[in-house]
């Protein structure tokens, strides 16, 4: 919608040479945008490199799939004009947009769909190639009709198709995925320098509505203060996903800027190693739930920003249940009773956290609160990502940790017995499997049941949901508020 208003504005300004709003010296509307981000991509190939940084920059901007997630988390058409699903939930018929080309000029057809999705299984090593496992076969019925047949009904695969694994590639554009991506999106990559910047230019041959911003520079910072200083000094126009919330207040009272607060998919999680001696007893985990004042942790670690969730489900997922936030109210006496019941006294746990600001701040509060119920937590801050991934995530050598899980719908991964949380509930896994194959209504119900069980069994203490806070120049319009997917969708931003 913003793009269409913007297009009209551009047209009228060109006609009358009017210079209202934010314009450059020449009287033309300023269609350049500089965005400040924190995590830099090491390269631009998300087929073999993990991390949120690459899809944040490229997904929906340079690369597109058949479907995308809108800002409310709803699956909407992108390269597919529409689709139908057979009654048994196995056959998806996608009608594709006609006349779409990749930025290297090659055409996008049903063959591209077949090529791209078949390539995932053998060539992708990162970003969840297993998400496409439900696909049995892909058929190019005609240039604009693609038929995808699943081996079993799956509610999650279409959602996952909105993420990186659903990206459409052309065979001629694979030569240098690390630095020169070729997609069908509204932008192309002009230059990329890891650790510094990624410059995008509007794709002149874009099949859809042209974006308002013709040139976008993504600038990468390593320091959150440097990032906000750059906004204050006018070097950049937008910060998406601020991570140090004490920096936000100075913008709230400043009329030159706007502060947008939305929902993310980042659950800040106090994880307990369910397979460890310390936490294998559900009563001990529940004691921790009662011992922690989540509001206090959020106030300290996040300057009060965030949402108490009580489960691993953000409000943008249809099976969100807000009542779970009150499942374990702060009650140290209850915690002490549960510990006594479990026959645990003088419990000492290895509390290994990543050396990230929110974790370091939060862990201190958690440690103090645990001490009040007689649990000694020895806090060690491990270098993130390298050492934390190795010690906690891969080797499971920990009792307790504190980390944000930022992937959308990552609760099913969290429940897997091999995952670092060590939560082992065949009943929950069975329910997730049943949910994936169920009809739309039962899907939501079953997901709700499984995630509620996880919360009741205290698989982890989901402390709070990280807010998605964007800081922007006051004249920017259409800045995405929520971050339901990994992508930072630039196409809606205008002035």
């Amino acid at each position: 919608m913003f793009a269409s208003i913007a297009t009209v504005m551009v047209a009228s300004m060109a006609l009358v040479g009017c210079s209202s709003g934010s314009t450059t010296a020449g009287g033309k509307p300023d269609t350049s945008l500089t965005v400040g981000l924190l995590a830099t991509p090491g390269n631009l190939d998300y087929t073999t490199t993990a991390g949120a940084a690459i899809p944040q920059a490229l997904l929906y901007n340079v690369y597109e799939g058949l479907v995308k997630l809108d800002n409310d988390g709803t699956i909407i058409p992108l390269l597919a004009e529409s689709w139908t699903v057979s009654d048994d939930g196995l056959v998806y018929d996608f009608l594709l947009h006609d006349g779409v080309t990749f930025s290297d000029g090659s055409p996008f057809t049903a063959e591209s769909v077949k090529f791209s999705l078949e390539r995932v299984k053998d060539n992708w090593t990162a970003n969840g190639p297993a998400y496409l496992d439900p696909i049995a076969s892909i058929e190019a019925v005609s240039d604009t009709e693609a038929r995808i047949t699943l081996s079993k009904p799956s509610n999650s695969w279409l959602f996952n198709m909105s993420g990186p694994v659903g990206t459409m590639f052309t065979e001629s554009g694979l030569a240098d995925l690390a630095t020169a991506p070729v997609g069908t999106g509204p932008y192309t990559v002009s230059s990329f320098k890891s650790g510094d910047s990624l410059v995008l230019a509007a794709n002149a041959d874009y099949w859809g509505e042209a974006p308002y911003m013709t040139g976008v520079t993504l600038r990468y910072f390593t320091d959150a203060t440097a990032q906000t200083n750059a906004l204050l000094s006018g070097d950049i126009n937008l910060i998406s996903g601020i991570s140090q919330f004490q920096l936000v207040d100075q913008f709230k009272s400043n009329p030159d800027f706007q502060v947008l607060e939305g929902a993310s998919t980042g659950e800040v999680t106090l994880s307990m190693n369910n397979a460890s001696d310390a936490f294998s007893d559900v009563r001990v985990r529940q004691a921790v739930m009662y011992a922690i004042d989540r509001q206090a942790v959020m106030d300290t670690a996040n300057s009060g920003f965030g949402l108490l969730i009580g489960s691993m489900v953000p409000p943008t997922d249809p099976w969100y249940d807000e009542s779970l936030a009150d499942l374990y109210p702060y009650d140290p006496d209850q915690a002490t009773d549960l510990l006594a019941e479990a026959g645990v006294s003088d419990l000492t746990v290895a509390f290994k956290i990543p050396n990230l600001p929110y974790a370091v701040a939060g862990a201190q509060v958690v440690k103090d609160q645990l001490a009040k119920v007689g649990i000694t937590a020895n806090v060690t801050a491990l270098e993130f990502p390298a050492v934390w991934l190795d010690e906690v995530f891969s080797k499971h050598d920990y009792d307790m940790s504190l980390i944000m899980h930022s992937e959308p719908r990552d609760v099913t991964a969290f429940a897997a017995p091999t995952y670092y949380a060590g939560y082992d509930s065949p009943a929950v896994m069975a329910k997730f499997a049943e949910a994936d194959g169920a009809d739309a209504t039962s899907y939501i119900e079953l997901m709700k049941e499984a995630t509620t069980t996880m919360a009741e069994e205290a698989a982890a203490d989901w402390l709070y949901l990280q807010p998605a806070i964007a800081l922007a120049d006051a004249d920017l319009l259409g800045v995405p508020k929520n971050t339901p997917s990994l992508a930072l969708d630039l196409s809606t931003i205008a002035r």
Partner: protein
Amino acid sequence: MVLVVLRRLGVFATTVVVASVVTFLMLSILPGNAARIALGVQASEADVAAQATAMGLDRPAIVRYLDWFGNVLIGDFGTSTVSRQAIGPEITDALGITVILVLTSVVLALLFAIPFGILTAVRQRKPDGAILSGISQIGVAVPGFLAGMLLVTIFAVTLRWLPAGGWVDPGEDFGGFIEHLILPAIALGSVQGAVLSRYVRSSVLEVMREDFIRTARAKGLGAGRALFRHGLRNAAVPVMTVLGLQIATLLVGAVVIERVFSIPGLGSLLLDKVALRDLPAVQGIVLVLVVFVLALNFLVDLAFTLIDPRLRSAT
């Protein structure tokens, strides 16, 4: 003279080899798995193991070392496991930025230190001399990153005269390049300028007590002319020694300043690569830094002999 240079080159080469072994060993005991970092939390342990093999991480340490250093000797730093680009050009690009930053800050430091140091020496017994001396003492005490943050708060955030950070290539936009260079160069150079001015001051004071200055004065030269004609050249030798040492310090200081100002120099590159366990790149960067510092010391030694003829006969 030639023998001295050859001997120094021998020491130089040995140091580089030793440094390469030490760097390699230290990085190989660094915890963390580059393959896991590359594939992230969604990948299975089996995928990670396969990736480690593909990255050559499961080969014996001695094979990895010889493979790496052998290639470095023929000028090939290998390919980054993260960016998948040749490491050599990544390093030279970043080194170029750091060298520009360090040299500019050295020039700024000298522009400040020489007049300021002479002034404080000449006005030593006057009240204003004591005040100036106090100012330089404060300058020594303020760390570069703090100076950087103060400069950003004043000139970028409040006054909006200069950008708060970032880097523009001089070939791309020279005005922008200068704008982006000013604050970090001042931040990096300020401490060095203050330190140097202390050395200039004491060095000038010492020289002024020398016999040849008294002789020059006796010939009828004024205090100023005697200092400028005969004193400064002599006072420069100890200052140059300190400057040579300081350039190495500045390279390290640049790591912090590059962070504060988001400048993609060698320090930023090094920290990014360490975080991602891009070991071939880290090894390459550290080796380049070692060679760079050694080469600087070597050049400073040579420069002495040019400034001070007395040292030529001594060696």
